[in-house]
């Protein structure tokens, strides 16, 4: 980066080149999702088919998760968080149903 470049902090999900993970070896785990992950994925697909959400909205919801939680949550846990927030935001379900 040139010295005069303004400092910008990339969003949490915008991970390309992130220094935080520079020296982190890649976890060779190549297993497919567990049952929880597959179930979240199936629900996501169905809600998209039924025009209740788009993949873009899913991503927006994931990107809204605060940084430390983003990295602490599992991949499909982030999806679930986003799907639940979207269903509340759109009034498809009511907050008390998730409590």
């Amino acid at each position: 980066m040139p010295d005069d470049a303004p400092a910008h902090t990339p969003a949490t999900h915008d991970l390309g080149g992130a220094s935080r993970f520079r020296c982190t070896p890649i976890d060779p785990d190549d297993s497919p999702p567990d049952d929880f992950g597959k179930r979240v994925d199936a629900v996501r697909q169905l809600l998209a088919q039924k025009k209740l959400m788009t993949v873009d909205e899913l991503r927006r919801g994931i990107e809204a998760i605060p940084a430390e939680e983003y990295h602490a949550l599992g991949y499909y846990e982030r999806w679930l968080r986003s799907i639940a927030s979207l269903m509340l935001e759109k009034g498809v379900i009511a907050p008390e149903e998730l409590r």
Partner: protein
Amino acid sequence: MAAPPRPESVELLEKLVAALSARGILTEEEIAERQAITDRASPETGARMVAKAWTDPAYRALLLSDGTAAAEAMGVTMAGAPPLGVLEDTPTRHHLVVCTLCSCYPRAVLGYPPHWYKSAAYRARAVRDPRGVLAEWGTHLPDSVEIRVVDSTADYRWMVLPMRPAGTEGWSEERLASIVTRDALVGVALPRVP
């Protein structure tokens, strides 16, 4: 290793499914059916496409110009799926696919993405230190070969067409497909003759 979901996440999922079911939005049967359909997609499809491209010049041309049509020609349902693009490796260029923003992956032809593809380390490092990433898979390319990292940032999904290795002359498509691994289709590894 991918950690198991927290109990509160499992609970949230069940409450969400119950709420959606109660409103008649979805059913357990639909979830099971959707999951079964998704489970059927696998890297064997991508491997068959590559093996066919290695033996059939017309199919190779189709694969490179219109990956979606090439997938459909192999019986894959691409309706509703993002368009598929295919990246041709050459003696001087090797492709590596990543999604730095989320985890876009050509699921229609490769199935579920593996855990590592979705990891922060892979997403962070692939665009900055591709040679270091490849080395973790035991893949070493000479400095004279360009590594072209493809960051799947928008509407396409990308698959690599690796080079056919020497020593496979006269092999059937089926045998060729057997050496095309999921890792080779993402670009972290090369097809190898056992």
